[in-house]
């Protein structure tokens, strides 16, 4: 079962996700990237079946790119992107649902950092930190204890490390590799990963 974690800090958002693609007793891959970049300054960590992950994220990302082309280079704000995702999920819910749980993080010049938690039923909430999957049972309490309003980027990365360490210690399912990305005023960048997604 996928793990997606996210925490905001002063000036950005840290997103982390496990890198395993497995079903039943088989592990297909251990280096997939579940944190999809949507625009230059936003990304979403996705938990769910690989097919829905790919179809949904590419659909959203391409629609956001279309918006930018149609509107003379203006990008949608993170809040607008999150609400767009929500309405697509809500419409699909009673037709052909995407079984994806999301943590959408972004940085806007006027608002700063923001993080949106969304479940597969399309309930949307702005949060300071969040976690999806079974690992949420282990990690949310760690984040409750360690989150502060004025975290630095290093402190936020440390909190994520504590969460990943807890998952490695106590979570039954083996998730050795984690992808960690940071979104700040300079955009989305990879901080570290366990398995290189480009390694085919």
């Amino acid at each position, binding site marked *: 079962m996928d793990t997606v974690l996210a925490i905001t800090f002063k000036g950005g958002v840290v997103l982390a996700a496990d890198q395993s693609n497995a079903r039943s007793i088989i592990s297909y891959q251990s280096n997939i990237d579940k944190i999809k970049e949507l625009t230059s300054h936003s990304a979403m960590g996705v938990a769910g079946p690989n097919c829905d992950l790919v179809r949904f994220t590419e659909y959203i990302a391409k629609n956001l790119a279309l918006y930018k082309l149609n509107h003379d280079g203006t990008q949608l704000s993170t809040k607008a992107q999150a609400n767009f995702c929500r309405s697509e999920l809500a419409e699909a819910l009673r037709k052909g649902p995407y079984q994806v749980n999301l943590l959408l993080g972004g940085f806007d010049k006027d608002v700063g950092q923001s993080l949106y*938690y969304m*479940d597969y*039923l*399309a*309930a949307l*909430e702005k949060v300071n930190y*969040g976690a999806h999957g079974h690992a949420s049972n282990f990690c*949310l309490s760690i984040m409750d204890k360690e989150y502060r309003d004025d975290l630095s980027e290093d402190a936020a990365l440390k909190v994520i490390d504590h969460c990943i360490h807890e998952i490695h210690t106590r979570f039954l399912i083996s998730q050795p590799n984690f992808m960690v990305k940071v979104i700040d005023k300079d955009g989305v960048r990879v901080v570290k990963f366990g398995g290189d997604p480009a390694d085919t």
Partner: protein
Amino acid sequence: MSILEYNGAAMIAMAGKNCVGIAADRRLGMQAQTVSTNFQKVFPMGDKLYVGLAGLASDVQTLHQLLEYRLSLYELNEERKMSPQVFSTLLSNVLYSKRFGPYFIEPIVAGLDKDNKPVLSGSDLIGASVSTDDFVVSGTCTGNLFGMCETLYKPDMDPDQLFETLAQALLASVDRDALSGWGGVVHIITPTGVMTKELKGRQD
């Protein structure tokens, strides 16, 4: 486990003397796990009309947007404000239109009509509505809420008494329900304006 109890909610709307109040909890959960303690379930639909949406969180947000759209369209077409009775009927019809694939919402409506008299109504998920002059409740602990309201309610309360009654009734009810609580919000609607207060109760 019922889909109406997946996210958790508790809300009350109660009438006073020329005023009406609506209160709700702030928890957003996924069954046993709490995701947010800041989730909005009561929405202003005009300066003297509030709607509380209890049930599946996704449908709370979808229905809120749908009702805003329908209200705006009405006000643009009719060139007048929508009265609470009309809004209640609209809500009822919207819910029944999805009779065989419903929105998982059990709403309550609280407002003041053009003579500043309280209007209260509640509905089930397929639009069967009821109109009362004392109080309506909805959510995952309606048993608790009914008991508290029946005990604490008295007619013709002024805004301050109404606030106190709503706050005590809500907090006592959610403390015995695992799926609701984590704070509350109360709106008191009077002819001169709306008073909103946040409640801090047991954070569990």
